[in-house]
């Protein structure tokens, strides 16, 4: 395929000539990477759309190592990973960030990463090292998927907000919860895995039957659930959302505070701490990377104290390095989830497809 493809492409490119490319020149011509030649000074990080880092912190990386980071956002987490699997061997970048316990097996089965033990890994607890001593991936952050509640709604009705999975199936909370489609959305899948972790292989189905009988609403994406249906968020209030319970993240309440003006004294939303599922996110050096040395330096940097402390306010996740301190916003307005549920990547890999299928026939049909 490859030779034929090369010939075809070359012939077509020649036929096209320079005219098309010249016709649209003059736009932002800052493209230097991708050309390969300048690869040694640029290191490309491929990630999902939620990746963010402060420009100042990235600049410090450049000052320390001489490498400039180029970020390539590649869709949501699953989509971004699937693109890397498709382009395996001829990757778009050097490091991929955004593989987590729900998707790790797919990446490892496809042999996507070159093992590398990042410097400073000893500051990361063994519990979150997803690949153990294989070092094919380096853990970077963890985040909790939890039910959020609208404080005002429950205060107005003098009703205690639900705290556990069991509570959500109580008649007092009928028609209040909106969740994401586990088939199509990662918080939706996380919530399903949380119930599977809590009730076991068989029990979770009975639990979902109860949730369904109790009027759970399913929508396709986090954006719709949180910004349209949920009555506690800014977007939801504007859209007159009428569901006071939503599956979101433990870090969502501090975010509601951060992006409100003037900043309120307390978050308008809270977290049902007994409904949390912990996801650990990791990065890896892509096989076939053009700039391996730069990629390794970048992996070291991702677990450095500097990056780890910058991360919470950019991606609303928790650092994994033990020496990284959480910002005041998190400690002040966020909740510490003492006992989140979680699941090993292998168990998720074994059951995910079948669970999603049973879930959708139970809940959607």
């Amino acid at each position, binding site marked *: 395929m*490859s030779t034929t*493809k*090369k010939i075809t*492409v070359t012939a*077509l490119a020649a*036929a*096209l000539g320079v*005219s*098309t*490319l010249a*016709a*649209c020149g003059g*736009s*932002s011509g800052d*493209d230097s990477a*991708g050309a*390969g030649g300048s690869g040694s000074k640029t290191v*490309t990080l491929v990630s999902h*759309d*939620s990746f*963010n*880092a402060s*420009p100042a912190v990235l600049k410090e990386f450049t000052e320390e190592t001489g490498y400039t980071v180029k*970020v*390539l*956002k590649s869709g949501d987490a*699953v*989509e971004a990973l*699937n*693109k890397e699997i*498709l*382009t395996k061997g*001829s990757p*778009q970048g050097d490091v991929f960030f955004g593989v987590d316990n729900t998707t790790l097996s797919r990446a490892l089965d496809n042999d996507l990463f070159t093992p590398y033990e990042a410097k400073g890994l000893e500051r990361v607890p063994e519990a979150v090292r997803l690949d153990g001593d294989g070092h094919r991936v380096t853990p970077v952050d963890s985040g909790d998927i939890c039910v959020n509640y609208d404080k005002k709604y429950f205060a107005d009705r003098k009703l205690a907000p639900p705290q556990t999975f069991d509570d959500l199936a109580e008649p007092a909370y009928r028609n209040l919860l909106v969740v994401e*489609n586990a*088939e*199509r959305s990662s918080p939706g899948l996380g919530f399903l895995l949380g119930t599977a972790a809590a009730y076991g292989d068989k029990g979770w189905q009975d639990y979902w039957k109860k949730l369904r009988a109790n009027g759970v609403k399913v*929508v*396709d994406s986090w*954006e719709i659930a*949180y*910004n*349209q249906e949920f009555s506690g*968020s*800014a*977007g939801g209030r*504007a*859209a*007159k*959302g*009428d569901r006071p319970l939503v599956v*979101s993240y433990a870090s969502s309440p501090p*975010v*509601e505070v*951060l*992006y*409100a*003006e003037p900043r309120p004294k307390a978050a308008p939303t809270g977290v049902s701490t007994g409904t949390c599922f912990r996801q650990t996110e990791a990065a890896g050096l892509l096989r076939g990377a053009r700039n391996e040395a730069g990629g390794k330096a970048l992996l070291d940097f991702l677990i450095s104290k500097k990056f780890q402390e910058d991360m919470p306010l*950019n991606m609303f996740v928790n650092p994994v390095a033990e020496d990284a301190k959480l910002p005041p916003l998190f400690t002040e307005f966020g909740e510490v989830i003492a006992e989140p549920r979680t699941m090993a990547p292998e168990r998720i890999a074994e059951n995910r497809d079948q669970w999603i299928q049973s879930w959708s026939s139970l809940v*959607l049909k």
Partner: protein
Amino acid sequence: MALPVAFFALFFALPVASIVGRGLRVGDSWRFGGIAEVVGRPDILQVLWFTLWQALASTGLTLLIALPGAYVLARCDFPGKQLLRAVVTVPFVLPTVVVGTAFLALLGRGGLLDDLWGVRLDTTVWAILLAHVFFNYAVVVRTVGGLWAQLDPRQEEAARVLGASRFGAWRRVTLPALAPAVAAAALMVFLFTFTSFGVVQILGGPAYSTLEVEIYRQTAQLLDLSTAAVLTLVQFAAVGAVLTVHARTVRRRETALRLVDPALTAHRPRGAGQWALLGGVLATVVLLIVTPLAVLVERSFDGPGGYGLTFYRALQSAGASGGTFLVPPVEAVWNSLQYALAATAIALVVGGLAAAALTLPRTSSGGSSKAGRLVRGFDALLMLPLGVSAVTVGFGFLIALDEPPLDLRTSWILVPLAQALVGVPFVVRTMLPVLRAVDARLREAAAVLGASPLRAWREVDLPLVRRALLVAAGFAFAVSLGEFGATVFIARPDNPTLPVAVARLLGRPGELNYGQAMALSTILMLVCAVALLLLDRLRPDRSAGEF
């Protein structure tokens, strides 16, 4: 001809073939047996059925609601007509994420309909159908209205004098004359709704899925390339069939029409009936198109301390969005304009040459039937990008354009290239009728007088098609500005386009992000409206162009 063919081969056929090929091959052998198996699956059949009937229903409903609008905009004269025409076209280029938000506000709980009559249509198929009408209203108004304005009303009057009832005269005289334009509009609406993605995903909820949504899910989420490949082929076949049927019916109906200056046919509404029609059309436009747009504008000003410019001010700094962007979101406006300009240039070159090539056989040799068929085939082929999934093209780019000399995956040029792919069909549609109208004898005379082909083109064709070219440029520009599917796939974080920036802002919690998304959408809307108003000013008087 060589350039447009090469362009489509390289940036459309090759990527699509690569990704479909990847899905249909196991090891070194092709596996076509799986096709029947996939198509026979009950869940896939259900998707197929829903895709087909919602597209038919959307097309029918759009025609029903928009045809009176086409009449009013073509035949009636009233103040604000230009503005109205621009307003109804704005939805056509808005990103679906934004429209979905607006529609939920209108049709969802606490929405306008809910407040007035307690009617809620969210997550019903009605929300999908109405959103499709919202998006495609302009297609009908512009395609059918453009022709309607130029039909000689005296023919209908003659029929009435001869004793036909008003409706009878319309049915026997005007309707047949309008048929090709109605068919063309129906075709476009059908293509757009058959491949509907964002609308169905946002308004349909988990219960409804079109082929396009399913292809996205199978490719991007499940990485089940063989199922995706089969579905792509099915969609391809369906779109191909529709284009073929269209090409045949249009040819049969292509009759010589006596066209007159639109200024002569339009008049102030006469009689209670016409005033009622105008009122009805205005009411429909206000309810269906202006209200959702107004909701967005209202929300963009609805800051924390009452109405104000908070969100617009926030757009000017990168920090306010908490690092969502590496640059202030407002720079997305500039990025969008640059990309759209580049895409327009590409679309004009490629589409213009294609349209010129499509005109040639008729003019040089009188046109043999074989060449004519070939040309019509190429014509239909140029429409295909509108009917093929953006995901398929995007993933195709990833795996087909990954080797030198064309490793374009991380290059900025990929965005305008993808946008141009959607723009080209519009350029061709606009240019073709005008180019065909150029009298070949003028070119021949120039050639006889010693002009080179280039000179003949410059001296003869260019002055005649200049205005059509401007109109085509405007459309390609507007389409590029609003294009989301392919762009979101490849846009780079340091230069997001407007629709991509809106989607990113909507993807994060917090009042400021949500407000900024609304503010950016409003800006996008304004840019579109201004571009379209300018476009209408440049509109040639006698262009029979379909848009």
